[in-house]
């Protein structure tokens, strides 16, 4: 009997590079850049102006609408500009740039614990919203939206996601070892909102210390359990966890809440605890600096807005003689390749992986025609048929891709591409096809208006 989902792959973990490194707070010296869109939804609206003095935790931009999140400063200093800067993905985006004075003067006292027992559910949600907490697993979905489903009583499971299935990354592992009590408190706060739910902390079984720590912290708590999951990618995917815990699969049109589940990353739960009990906004998160090319891989608490380049340099830079072949924001399975490191770390980022060798380059040399071997289908955690989807997408038959093959359900986990013996770039093809379909939908919607 094993706790896991169907399909999945087993990429090499490489977690030993950084797994024993304690979380260290990294204080940057250079200028700090805060993109206005660090979450899914509408970009935040700036509330500061050029030359304004700001302090750590001070509101820089407020949420614009329901699905949006405010942004707070992670340093003290003066606003240098509000201008377009390059961000992850290579695009230019509106950013607030702050001249960091290096003092890190707090805007308010975030060390005083407040009594949360008297808080109503609405007040908890409001504090989470005001603190700008977003999903720290990578997607950056505003947490307060997740906490307000249509029917909170129908939620059966609140899943604390500590799987950390992405290779190389270890910051959640360290977080759970050190801040297990805080994470459990965060989960308790969330459980208050969902009276009929059971809290399940899911951790892959390659992190025995974290499992032990979380079990100790959760023991004696009502409605709470720790589950050791099979180490398999993408175990930490929202749908994979729900499959494993609740045994439910659901189409892309539905949200986890529709099947009675709420999934929160352990880092998010920690942020919720800080926000609700200490009034501290989200301006820092745990972060892994790793990869074969890095001199000193390790886990850090980084401040939002820090430049990737500065973190890498201050941490000792590259290994002697190592070449930076590839820099990934995140891990190698879902991470985004960075063209330059002179861009800011955003809230939802959890790692920088610098590789000395590019496996994709080697794989491309081995690419053959599709064999139709069906491995992609075997490993797909959603039960899709990637080989046919790829044929349809390349042939431009988006209708078949969407309607017959359920291509929009693809979560772009990359398992099929990882497993493909013919080394076909399936995931990028799907990504593009999905974007095209969304574009078409938008255009058609516009035409009707």
């Amino acid at each position, binding site marked *: *009997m094993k706790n896991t*989902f169907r399909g999945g792959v087993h990429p090499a973990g490489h977690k030993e590079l950084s797994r024993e490194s304690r979380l260290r707070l990294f204080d940057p010296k250079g200028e700090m850049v805060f993109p206005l869109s660090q979450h899914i939804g509408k970009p935040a609206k700036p509330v500061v102006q050029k030359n304004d003095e700001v302090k750590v935790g001070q509101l820089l931009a407020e949420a614009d609408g329901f699905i949006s999140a405010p942004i707070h400063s992670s340093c003290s200093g003066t606003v240098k500009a509000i201008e377009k800067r390059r961000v992850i993905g290579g695009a230019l985006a509106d950013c607030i740039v702050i001249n960091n004075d290096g003092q890190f003067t707090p805007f308010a006292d975030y060390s005083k614990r407040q009594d949360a027992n008297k808080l109503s559910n609405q007040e908890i949600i409001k504090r989470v919203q005001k603190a700008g907490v977003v999903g720290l697993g990578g997607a950056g979905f505003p947490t307060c939206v997740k906490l307000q489903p249509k029917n909170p009583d129908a939620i059966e499971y609140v899943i604390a996601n500590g799987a950390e299935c992405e290779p190389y990354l270890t910051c959640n592992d360290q977080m759970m070892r050190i801040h297990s009590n805080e994470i459990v408190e965060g989960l308790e706060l969330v459980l208050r909102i969902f009276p009929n739910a059971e809290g399940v902390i899911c951790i892959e079984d390659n992190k025995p210390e974290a499992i032990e720590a979380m079990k100790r912290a959760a023991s004696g708590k009502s409605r709470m359990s720790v589950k050791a999951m099979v180490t398999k990618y993408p175990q930490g995917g929202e749908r994979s966890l729900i499959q494993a815990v609740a045994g439910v699969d659901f189409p892309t049109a539905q949200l986890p809440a529709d099947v009675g589940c709420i999934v929160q990353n352990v880092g998010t739960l920690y942020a919720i605890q800080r926000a609700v009990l200490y009034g501290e906004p989200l301006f820092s998160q745990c972060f892994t600096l790793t990869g074969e090319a890095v001199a000193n891989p390790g886990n850090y608490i980084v401040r939002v807005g820090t430049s990737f380049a500065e973190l890498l340099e201050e941490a000792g830079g590259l290994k002697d003689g190592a070449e930076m072949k590839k820099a990934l924001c995140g891990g190698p399975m879902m991470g985004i390749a960075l*063209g330059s490191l002179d861009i800011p770390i955003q809230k939802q980022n959890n790692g920088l992986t610098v590789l000395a060798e590019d496996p994709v380059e080697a794989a491309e040399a081995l690419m053959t025609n599709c*064999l139709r071997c069906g*491995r992609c289908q075997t490993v797909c955690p959603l039960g899709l048929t990637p080989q046919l989807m790829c044929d349809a997408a390349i042939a431009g038959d988006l209708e078949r891709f969407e309607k017959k093959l359920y291509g929009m359900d693809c979560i772009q986990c990359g398992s099929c*591409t990882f497993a493909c013996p013919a080394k076909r770039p399936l995931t990028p093809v799907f990504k593009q096809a999905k974007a095209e379909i969304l574009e078409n939908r938008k255009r058609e919607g516009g035409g009707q208006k």
Partner: protein
Amino acid sequence: MNAAVNTVNLSSAPHVRDKWTTPFIMRMVALSLMPATIVGILVYGWNAFAIVALSVISAVAAEWVFCKICRKPSTIWDGSAVVTGLLLALSLGPQTPLYCPVIGSIFAIVVCKCCFGGLGKNFINPALAARCFLLISFANAMAIKPVIDAVATATPVGAMKAGETVNITKMFLGTADGVIGSSILALLVGGLLLWSLDIIHGEICFSVLIGFTLFLGIFGGKGFDVNYLLAHLCGGGVVMGAFFMATDYVTSPVSKLGQLIYGCLIGVLGGLFRLKGNTADSFSYAIIIGNVCTPLIDTYIVQKPFAYRKVGKTRKTSKQPFRIPKPVIALTLIAAIAGVALSGVFSMTKDKIDEQETLKKAASYTEVCPEAESFAIHEEANTKIEEKAGTDWHADYPSARINEVFECRDAAGGVVGYALSITSKGFGGDVTMAMGIRADGTISGIAFTELKETAGLGMKADEPEFKDQFPGKSVSIDLVKGAPQDDNDISAITGATVTSTAVYNAVNAGLNFYETVLKGGN
């Protein structure tokens, strides 16, 4: 550091890849075909080796040349041409003329694969298509000629179609007449290995076998008779087809349901062709029809994602039940099959061999005593034989031993002569012969039941020119070189003194036996 940043690679996620590659898969398939190839070469000899080698080499060469002519990058490194060549060779008879594998491989690679766009684009299995092409084009050359069982006139499947019984054990081990890759045991070892590694889909191979078995069981007219079904499963490329041909990725459906339909289709068609068709090679055609149906199946049967399947909500039962790992199942199956096969072989072949020998001996007795209507055991003479058991009958005739003796009787029951079985040492091992002696002491004929001498020399003993010298001789014979001078002279076989001497010793021992035992007893 900025310099380094500029050389950084950009690509879309994921940024790591599994170790499995196309050549790896092809290597594994080729490896799993090795047991069958080796057994085939061991059983059928050098010609089989030449066919395998030529087939593989010409397949790879054809692909290389095609890529050169089309100015495309060479794709021979992906290993698929090797597999195609190997599969084709294994589906040819060991006596096939050597131009067949060459033409077949070129047809498979150029026409069936490369012309359709290369690896992954062909619509039928190239090896099978080439085999069918050869069957149609060179029907006579492709007919499987018996190499092992010279008495048989047809391959086991041909014999089955003619309603004869076949030796399942030999078919299972691959020591019956058939194609090079006809050892079911070796094919099963390879096939189950591939299945346990998840390289081939169990849905296909097992549904082919089950579909075929069920069809024959229901419509074969013999019900679910184990021997009948096993004989059909072991013959005519069913196992090779199920594990290595039907499972070809490119020409089989991708959905699990589609694979089951495809497998059953092939199994049922194969069964139908086997029962009603007039060729023993029908299974290839069944698979090709399955191949052609694949695009149709793939268009209409598409696997739905888990979320859209009507399986009822399996809430809270997400814990996967413990499953026995496939390699364990495969290894157990192989061990069980091999064990049963070996013990079966031992008991079954022993009886069979004895039976065969008896039949052969009976036939030769009738040959050497044409006047006899029936044979009876000669108790007294056999007692004498047992006394001398294990030693030469007469010191003058070294290595000649009398095995048994029968009385030959006519229709009225009168003794017309004696039939003896005598063994002596030849050049290539034992020479065993039947010898008939009439009641008057003259030889009525000799026939060999065991003769393993040098072809073209010692084997001439079995030719009439030599054998026909014996009838009429009595008392003792002399061996001379060249033409006979005397009544009792036998002209030796030129260049085969040892064989001639063996026969001379045997015949004289027999005559002596008559003079000392049988004549006296008369």
